[in-house]
């Protein structure tokens, strides 16, 4: 199988950041969360479908870019993005709970 790892890594990073931002914006803006709910019936379903479409769409869009020769920075960038996104979500929901 001929995967383009750079396209896969960029798709993973962009999807991770997009899901995090959409979640945080949705929690801060009721109209935006309602928009997400109205698309599929539940905000989480919309985020799930959106993340799949974004990941697959971006991968095929970037399929022809030149792939990495060395993967060292790729795994670091993916890991940092995912860990920071996890922390952002956890800290946001913790703050949100205690600020009510």
């Amino acid at each position, binding site marked *: 199988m001929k995967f383009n790892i750079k396209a896969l890594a960029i798709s993973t990073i962009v999807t991770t950041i997009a899901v995090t931002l959409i979640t945080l914006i949705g929690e801060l803006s009721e109209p935006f969360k309602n928009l997400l709910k109205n698309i599929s019936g539940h905000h989480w379903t919309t985020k799930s479908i959106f993340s799949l479409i974004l990941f697959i769409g971006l991968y095929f869009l970037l399929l022809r870019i030149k792939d990495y020769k060395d993967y*060292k920075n790729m795994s670091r960038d993916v890991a940092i993005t995912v860990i920071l996104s996890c922390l952002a979500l*956890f800290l946001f929901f913790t703050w949100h*709970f205690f600020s009510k």
Partner: protein
Amino acid sequence: MVNPLVGIHAALGELGIFTFLWILVELMNPTNTRIKRAKIAAILGVIFIFSSWLAGGYYYLNYYGDNVKPLIKEGPNPWAHLIFTETKEHIFLFIPFLSILVLGLIYKNNLLKNNSARKSIIIISALIILLGFAMAAMGYIISTGARTALEAKVI
């Protein structure tokens, strides 16, 4: 009675996490046989993670929201939902894409020669395992939130 889907979701998720632990172990000191096994594990891992996504999603949308969420929110530990379910349901969405990235790295490269690809697979698999353990821990906290609410007879 506890909805069996939550158990299926957890079991599929755990199996998914263990396949990435399997990949990590196989690639610590790779041989052709170990790489072949890691390739099988990567396919199984993606299948388990996506199945867990479907089972967990169906449970969350059709059972948790109407039955468990109000119970926890009215109980003595509402933070179990308001912090941990909210965090878990979103962090989970990162794992399927990480699993595809591992699959791509394993199938693209000659892992006996490409050391940076091998190390990247180990790092991303370790990240998936870490997130998986976090999912399991948050699932336990959420279950505890529901159990304490039942013990307090809030509904």
